[in-house]
């Protein structure tokens, strides 16, 4: 460009790549090196003190035979249902209801206040959500049991978090509450982007609300649905704080998940090598999903 004529004042010309140096160094120290160390440790037997003993793939072989690990992994799938599948499905219906019905017939203000209420749990520290819910679900004097008594359903009282048959479902219910706001906000943003005339045309043709929902609303925000499902699945696989605060993986491992399982191996059982193997396995699964998510996301953007 003609800027060459002004080269006198541009003495030093450094490449843009220089701006990456602080970030690159910081990433090396905080992400890359620890991650490689973790992978390395997973190939050893190590208690965290003394020198690690080379173990090859022993830890991974043990993992395959460890029923406690597989159980924690099954609970991960339950978390995917609670944090990705149910919030996405519920979020769709709620977003459509808020957008088509409440915003049109009651007012956009009401719709955005409701949206904010659903989103609130997302900005709360999970430790706080955990305190609130473990008190609500407490066996003695817990708000839920007391409420059941008050409406004459006292026979339904349970130790919601302490009973191995119920604990996982209780944690799942809490996670639905925590997670629901995220898909809701994304879907409402997606609906704002969509073309309202299609919807009006379908309404004039006499299509019922459900038919319009299925045939007009859903196809329009398909890219958002895919992205939300994948990101929420990844969040579900990583869930730690909620389990720590609500149940500590108990009772008897009934709510253990891989991330808590690796935490226990690191800091409670001092089986550092084994814990590293668990977290490395978890990482491989999550990164694979993240790659799929990125692929789909770029494809969705190209189509827009």
């Amino acid at each position, binding site marked *: 460009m003609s800027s060459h004529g002004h080269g006198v004042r541009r003495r030093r010309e450094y490449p843009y790549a220089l701006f990456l140096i602080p970030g690159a160094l910081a990433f090396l120290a*905080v992400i890359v090196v620890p991650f490689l160390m973790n992978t390395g440790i997973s190939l050893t037997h190590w208690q965290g003190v003394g020198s690690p003993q080379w173990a090859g793939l022993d830890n991974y072989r043990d993992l395959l035979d460890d029923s406690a690990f597989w159980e924690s992994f099954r609970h991960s799938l339950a978390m995917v249902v609670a944090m990705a599948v149910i919030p996405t499905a519920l979020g769709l219906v709620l977003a459509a209801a808020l957008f088509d019905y409440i915003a049109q017939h009651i007012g956009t203000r009401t719709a955005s206040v409701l949206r904010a209420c659903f989103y609130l749990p997302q900005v709360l520290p999970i430790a706080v959500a955990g305190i609130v819910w473990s008190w609500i679900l407490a066996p003695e004097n817990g708000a839920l049991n007391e409420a059941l008594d008050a409406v004459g359903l006292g026979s339904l009282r349970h130790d919601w978090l302490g009973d191995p048959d119920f604990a996982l479902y209780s944690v799942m219910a809490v996670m639905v509450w925590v997670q629901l706001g995220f898909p809701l906000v994304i879907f409402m943003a997606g609906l704002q982007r969509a073309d309202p005339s299609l919807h009006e045309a379908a309404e004039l043709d006499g299509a019922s609300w459900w038919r319009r929902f299925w045939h007009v609303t859903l196809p329009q925000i398909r890219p958002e649905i895919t992205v939300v499902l994948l990101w929420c699945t990844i969040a579900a696989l990583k869930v730690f*704080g909620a389990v720590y605060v609500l149940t500590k993986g108990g009772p008897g491992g009934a709510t253990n998940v891989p991330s808590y399982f690796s935490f226990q191996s690191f800091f409670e059982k001092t089986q550092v090598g084994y814990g590293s193997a668990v977290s490395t396995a978890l990482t491989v699964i999550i990164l694979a999903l993240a790659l799929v998510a990125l692929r789909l996301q770029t494809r969705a953007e190209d189509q827009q």
Partner: protein
Amino acid sequence: MVLPFLVVVLNAVKSPAEYSANGPLSLPEGMHLDGLRDFWERVDFGRKLVNSVLISGSVAVLAAVLSVLNAYAIGIGRIKGRPWVLAFFVLANMLPQEALVYPVYYLSKQAGLYDTRLSVIIVFTVIQSAFGTYLLSSVLGAFPKEVIEAARIDGANKWQVLWRVVVPVSRPTIGVLLVFFFIWTWNEFLLPLVMLISNDNQTVSVALGVLQGQRLMDATMTNAAALLGVLPAFCFFLIFQRTLTRGIAMGAVK
């Protein structure tokens, strides 16, 4: 959705006697703030708030600076191998913290940084800036080239263009990032739980989580704890509601 919070507020202002007599669903007979005061003093809550503000604030600012630098090279500089660099940052952000926690714990002990707020600030600055780099790169990728060229013709070097042109124009996005980094860091649990073991360094989230894990509290104190934990988050929420909804939509679609 909001019901649990309302029940918490009701019960945080009851006396233990009132709670055991009337249960969790009755309306409080008066304002009884001893539970709140006891809890505040017992966990030195003021100190935890200072720690949380200090850690989250530093991380928000530092991570935003790092994100801007990275995104300038990727989005405007269009450096070679840009999709790979970007993919690397995203994957770094997706990494479960469990895969970093033990080495970070070990290395920080070696470096004498264990149980310091600085260690947590460093780690989260990097983790948050991974997301910031991803988001800002795509925003800066669409930055009008004429503006940058005009500044260059006027004799500004790359550093000056960044701070005098790119940053001021991208202020809205950077604002969203600051809010998100602050709240995310405030809410973080695993790494602060492992790294900040002494009472003096703990954050609000860790202090509440650890107390809850030990189950030492009675019902009114639990509610007091929950209320004090909810309040800061609720304030951020009221202040930043608009930024937050704009931000997640931006994060998802970009």
